[in-house]
């Protein structure tokens, strides 16, 4: 052993470098951050899916044509398509062929032969101009002018439901996020309390040697912030890997139409370690200052 050279001495940290508890706490924070990141990814993806669906629905309308007595369903549908084509804001209107219309109903019937006896209504699919879509009223008026009995569905009730569902998802994700942040703060506060109790000897000696409450609190603050950042990084990396797997498995189709994950979404997870460190620092400081304040 070389003799000790005071000139080379560097101050050692007041808190012991490692505590047994630290590993477990880092794991808890990693799991919480993993869940938080998944929640965020899910929220972003479902928001994107909802926007995609409403965009598709907004660009089209469906018209159900009820043939009048004396007119074949085919001719009624053809006339309706023609009437609709000339409405401003309609880019394309086409009658759905009989087979396709029947195919839509067939799954709901036990015996496909019944179809022949059923007055299956004819559908006209309408593509709307995205920038200036034709209104339901304008289309209804054009149909009436041709003496056609038809109902126009511009999908607005569907869109309302999808939007409501998307909004609900957003709020739910936000709520879960808040809960996770609170759970993280509580875990840190608990650990700080335990850390202070376990290191009471150190805290007391520093306190009696004239250390300010802020100085002592900062030791715990720094320690728990670093630990949380580490746990947050691990959790975020796990979530990012999970998201990347979804994206790869999903590809263009697969899962993506339901939960379309974009590569750029994965950068969201980077905020997690920072947020975790912030929450941890705040919780540790609050707890430490309160406990040190009790000393004298």
């Amino acid at each position, binding site marked *: 052993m070389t003799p*000790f050279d*005071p*000139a080379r*001495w*560097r*101050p*050692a940290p*007041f808190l*012991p470098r490692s505590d047994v508890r630290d590993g477990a706490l880092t794991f808890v924070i990693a799991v919480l951050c993993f869940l938080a990141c998944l929640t965020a990814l899910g929220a972003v993806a479902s928001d994107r899916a909802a926007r995609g669906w409403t965009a598709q629905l907004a660009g089209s309308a469906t018209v159900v044509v009820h043939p009048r007595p004396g007119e074949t369903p085919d001719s009624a549908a053809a006339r309706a398509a023609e009437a609709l084509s000339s409405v401003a804001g309609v880019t394309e209107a086409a009658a759905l062929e009989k087979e396709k219309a029947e195919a839509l109903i067939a799954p709901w019937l036990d015996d496909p032969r019944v179809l022949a006896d059923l007055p299956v209504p004819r559908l006209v699919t309408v593509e709307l101009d995205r920038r200036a879509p034709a209104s339901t009223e304008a289309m209804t008026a054009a149909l009436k002018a041709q003496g056609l009995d038809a109902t126009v569905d511009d999908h607005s009730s569907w869109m309302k439901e999808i939007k409501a569902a998307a909004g609900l998802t957003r709020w739910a994700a936000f709520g879960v996020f808040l809960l996770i942040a609170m759970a993280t703060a509580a875990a840190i506060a608990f650990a700080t309390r335990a850390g202070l109790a376990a290191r009471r*000897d*150190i805290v*007391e*000696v*520093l*306190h*009696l*040697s*004239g*250390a*300010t409450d802020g*100085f002592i609190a900062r030791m715990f603050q720094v320690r728990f912030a670093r630990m949380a950042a580490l746990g947050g990084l691990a959790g975020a990396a796990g979530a990012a890997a999970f998201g990347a797997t979804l994206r790869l498995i999903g590809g263009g189709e697969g899962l993506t139409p339901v939960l379309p994950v974009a590569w750029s979404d994965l950068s969201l997870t980077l905020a997690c370690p920072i947020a975790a460190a912030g929450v941890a620092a705040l919780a540790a400081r609050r707890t430490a200052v309160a406990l040190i304040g009790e*000393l*004298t």
Partner: protein
Amino acid sequence: MSRNAETQGASDTAEEPILRFDQVSMRYGRQPEVLTDVSFALRPGSFHFVTGASGAGKSSLLKLIYLAAKPSSGLIHLFGEDLSRTPAARLPLLRRRIGVVFQDFRLLDHLSAFDNVAVPLRIASQRPSDYRADVAELLGWVGLKAKMQALPPTLAGGEKQRLAIARAVVARPDLLLADEPTGNVDHQMALRIYRLFVELNRLGTTVVIATHDQDLVARSGQPVMHLEGGRLSFPSAPRSRP
């Protein structure tokens, strides 16, 4: 003995006392008082022993002085400040002017002897380059030159005691308090430690030592404050006289 504690008439002295108790009482929680109506004043640069049976309140008295407890009634003036009016934010600054040798040492077991001694200097935000040499010299002075890297649990009782003393004096406190600093060592070591305190006192530090060691008190000839049942008295003549 010019350095004696003053019972009454503290205000008569020209020099302002470094510490003054005015009818101070203290209790732990709702328990009966452990100190009752304690009054005294210490001049800067004085040296006093606090004696008394076990449980007489010696450690409690010191706790009041090193700001680890508050009196239940009465006034304490420390370094000329009325502690009842001192804002909490100032207390750390006052504590930095006091060195304490605790009855149970309170060394930090995970830190080397060198790091333990450096604690008060680090808290006072001094730069390592400014105090490294001082710490090493002080450790040599208390006979721990070869133990600078040792962890406290590996030290002998007397070594721990000297380490605790080194930490208490390293920041050159104005007031040094020692609680039973010779409690766990043999007679020879007790004398060595006592001489160390006298040396510091010569350099200007006010010293207060709580002890059971009647023999040491008698040999030293230093003034005594005696506690009995929580009350303070001042035996006038040191017992070293024949």
